[in-house]
């Protein structure tokens, strides 16, 4: 698993306290991976709000409209709109500019990692991943 640290998680915060559990969004065209990520998220033991699922970037943007989302976990290789296009769209939006986005992908090549970092990915996790390591990483992100 490869990763780097980045932006702080923006939950639903009033004053200095997060008052509501964070809503999350999983974006992957594979239902199998979405199920695995959902299981890993629940294994963090943290209180979660809604965990939404999208099959591509376009569906993700549509689901995010009018919602408070605290963290996005996104694949890169997807039909219609891939993960890098989604990241570009989020970073170009005033509402989602600082939203933490973790890329979870088989694309482990240095060029792709650098592209994702330059586009503002918060963290980068390469598939296949160890569920334990991913759980710890997500728990750390969600606890901030």
């Amino acid at each position, binding site marked *: 698993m490869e990763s780097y640290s980045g932006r702080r998680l923006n939950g639903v915060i009033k004053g200095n306290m997060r008052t509501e559990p964070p809503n999350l969004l999983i974006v992957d*065209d*594979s*239902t*199998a*991976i979405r*199920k*695995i990520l959902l*299981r890993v998220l629940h294994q963090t033991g943290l209180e979660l709000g809604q965990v939404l699922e999208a099959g591509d970037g376009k569906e993700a943007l549509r689901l995010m409209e009018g919602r408070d989302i605290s963290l996005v976990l996104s694949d890169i*290789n*997807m*039909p219609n709109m891939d993960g890098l296009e989604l990241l570009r769209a989020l970073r170009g939006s005033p509402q989602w500019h600082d939203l933490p986005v973790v890329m979870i*992908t*088989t*694309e*482990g*090549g240095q*060029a792709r990692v650098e592209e994702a970092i330059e586009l503002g990915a918060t963290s980068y996790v*390469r*598939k*296949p*991943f*160890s569920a334990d390591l991913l759980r710890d990483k997500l728990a750390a992100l969600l606890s901030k």
Partner: protein
Amino acid sequence: MTQEQAGRVIPQQNEMAEMLFAATQEVFTSMLGSEIQQLSAPEAERSTPFDGVLSLIGLAGALIGNGALVCSAEMACDLSSRLLCAEVSGVDEQVLDAVGEITNMIVGGFKNLLEAHVGPLQMSIPSVIFGKNICTRDARADVVVAVRCAFPGGEFDLTVRLATARK
């Protein structure tokens, strides 16, 4: 034989087989909780029709071609069950999706290793076929790598076919 393309050395067939097996081993260890063994290489081109599941992912860059996983329906269910930690009774959309994702991770891992030698490669999303009397044939491939793997659930075959991209 090692081939050279645009100043880059394309790994030999046996080196590519090692890369493919290493990528597969990583997927099985990390995601399926199982060790695998490499058996003797299977026939790369399936001229004899077979029944089961064929999962394909395209590769493009300095080399073009595809990576494929072939297994029986029972094996596809077993792989899916291990990935999802859930019982599976028969081949359905969930099973085909899981086999596609396993292929994606294996071919992706192989691609990441190969990129160190041949430069950036692009991957397609997986296409998974389930049926009877499946045959495969490739019009042009300079390198064909075939690996047969075994694990407690049975055996499956992996094949990568690559050709140098025409300019």
